[in-house]
């Protein structure tokens, strides 16, 4: 029998991280993945990650995947692709379909890191071609470079729905609307704001009534629901779309663990194995890490993977109990830091009305996807200043702090707790370098200069669309809701390498538009 110290199933963020941790401690490790590319969902993630440095924040997902893969290879981890693990049997034996053969492997320990699949929601016409998972559309766009459709309606305003909507816009699709049966947006407000300022409307407390079309999706009808999710007659609304994306949650792919006899439980995070804080299941030597043990983010999956890899090393005697404890203690701290704030797992489904700082949460952000101008003053990142200065429209406690490190002048403070809202340190003055703007994974930081020219202000914004405007272009400035508010002239375009493909557009707008204009639309641009 082919035997390894550790078998890992799934080469995504959790699996690769586990492999690295284990191999570092001397284990022989083999990783199987059914896909032809390693990295799992990371290679579809073209956006910058949240968190702090230890969580690989502000690095784009696919780059993190590349880094992990390189590190695993350097540690002589064997990664076998196009390898479907068909079963996890007694004695930690797996059967793997590789090519035209079934191969058998045994591991002294097994880490299952198989991730999750997309949930579906049934409505009339949901089986029509053109109704697809949001993740599937992401695969089409970012891995296969195929436009999933021309005009898309997105159901679901969790982070997946928001992030994919933005990526659809980037790919040149029109997004007709974002719809969610919940009365408030489920994902990060900053993700919603990116989409809203492109002009995409949000329909909260709405659901899809039916997909229209005989042979494929030709349209969709949505309607408003009451507080018990019952449709309110007469509220139907039709959209011409050719694609309906469903971003209605994920389910752990925990079948292998179930089959292996691990104790399972039904939780709000999915049907998952019962695990301890180190990912150990009820079967000694079998561990679970990442989404398969409960749906979270890739950032936490990577840490869970590292913990499981470390514990597997300890289980097999490659690490002393003390040494393992030292490593996992640090990792658990990093995990805790991610799991704080209003989006922490324990807050799922709860109504949060105040930030940790005691500031009322923006209602407009939660229902329309953008901050209302009247609400801006109460947030510490949005301060008026002389000359050029950052405006940080970051109003929710999300685990993220790259802006703090990005500012060479230390103008921005978040502090120890990475879910705190950023505040402006008045003592230090902004140089206008734009590093904070480019570093903000939520694209929520803008540079304002109300003294740009008499009667005019400059607004610098992050921009990740093509074609890139050039200096001297004129177009329209859009407000946070995507409404055209005034003429704008591009006065500077910066794309240094340090910005990692986030371009900074600086546009000149009338002074009274300084706190309104948040996006730029050149003439003939399609994203609306």
């Amino acid at each position: 029998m082919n035997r390894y110290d550790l078998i890992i199933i799934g080469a995504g963020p959790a699996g690769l991280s586990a492999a690295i941790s284990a191999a570092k401690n001397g284990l022989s490790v083999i990783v199987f993945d059914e896909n032809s590319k390693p990295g799992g969902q990371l290679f579809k993630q073209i956006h910058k990650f949240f968190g702090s440095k230890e969580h690989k924040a502000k690095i784009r997902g696919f780059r993190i995947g590349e880094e992990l893969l390189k590190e695993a290879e350097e540690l002589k981890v064997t990664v076998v692709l196009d390898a479907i693990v068909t079963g996890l049997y007694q004695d930690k034996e797996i059967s793997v379909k590789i090519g035209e053969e079934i191969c058998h492997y045994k591991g002294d320990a097994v880490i299952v890191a198989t991730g999750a699949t997309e949930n579906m929601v049934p409505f009339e016409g949901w089986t029509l071609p053109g109704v697809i998972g949001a993740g599937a559309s992401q695969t089409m766009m970012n891995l296969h470079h195929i436009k999933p459709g021309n005009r898309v309606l997105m159901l679901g305003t969790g982070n997946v729905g928001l992030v994919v909507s933005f990526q659809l816009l980037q790919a040149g699709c029109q997004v007709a609307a974002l719809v969610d049966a919940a009365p408030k947006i489920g994902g990060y407000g900053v993700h919603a704001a990116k989409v809203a300022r492109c002009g995409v409307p949000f329909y909260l407390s709405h659901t899809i009534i039916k997909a229209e079309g005989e042979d494929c999706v030709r349209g969709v009808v949505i309607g408003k629901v009451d507080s018990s999710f019952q449709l309110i007659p007469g509220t139907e609304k039709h959209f011409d779309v050719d694609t309906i994306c469903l971003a209605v949650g994920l389910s752990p792919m925990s079948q292998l663990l179930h089959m292996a006899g691990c104790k399972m439980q039904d939780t709000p995070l999915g049907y998952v194995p019962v695990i301890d804080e180190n990912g150990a299941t009820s079967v000694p030597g079998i561990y679970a890490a990442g989404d398969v043990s409960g749906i979270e983010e890739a950032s936490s999956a990577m840490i869970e993977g590292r913990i499981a890899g470390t514990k597997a090393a300890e289980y097999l005697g490659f690490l002393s109990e003390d040494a393992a404890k030292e490593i996992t203690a640090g990792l658990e701290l990093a995990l805790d830091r991610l799991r704080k704030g209003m989006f922490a797992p324990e807050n799922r489904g709860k109504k949060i009305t105040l930030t940790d700082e005691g500031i009322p949460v923006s209602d407009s952000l939660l229902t329309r996807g953008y901050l209302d101008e009247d609400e801006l003053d109460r947030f510490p990142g949005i301060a008026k200043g002389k000359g050029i200065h950052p405006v940080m429209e970051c109003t929710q406690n999300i685990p993220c702090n790259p802006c703090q490190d990005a500012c060479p002048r230390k103008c921005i403070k978040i502090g120890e707790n990475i879910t705190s809202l950023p505040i402006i340190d008045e003592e230090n003055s902004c140089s206008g370098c734009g590093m904070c703007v480019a570093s903000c994974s939520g694209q929520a930081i803008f540079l304002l200069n109300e003294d740009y020219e008499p009667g005019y202000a400059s607004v610098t914004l992050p921009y990740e669309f093509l074609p890139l405007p050039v200096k001297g272009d004129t177009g329209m400035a859009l407000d946070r809701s995507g409404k055209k508010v005034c003429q704008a002239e591009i006065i500077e375009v910066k794309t240094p390498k340090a910005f990692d493909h986030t371009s900074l557009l600086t546009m000149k707008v009338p002074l009274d538009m300084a706190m309104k204009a948040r996006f730029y639309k050149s003439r003939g641009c399609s994203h609306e």
Partner: protein
Amino acid sequence: MNKRNDRLAEIGPFISQPDDDMIICRCEEVTKGEIRKAVHDGMFTLTEIRRYLRTGMGLCQGQTCSKLVKSIVAKELGLPPGDIEPAVSRAPMRPIEMKILGNDRKEV
């Protein structure tokens, strides 16, 4: 596991609903109405529903529909979905041609 379940428990009559003809299990083309009816025929567990109607027995092995079936059955029984035990997971995790499954790599 092994929760006492009296199959004469009163769950009320089957009342048809306008969306009963909506397909829930795409692989085996099982509708919502068929699932609801099966509950009234006494199929109180997902395993029984599966054997009775073939839900989740197609190519995707319930990856897509199992959660949906579960919520329909739970609603029909008046239980929270968490009380309904998912059907077991069985190898192979993905459909495999007989000629490949029968082709174990020879150990050297």
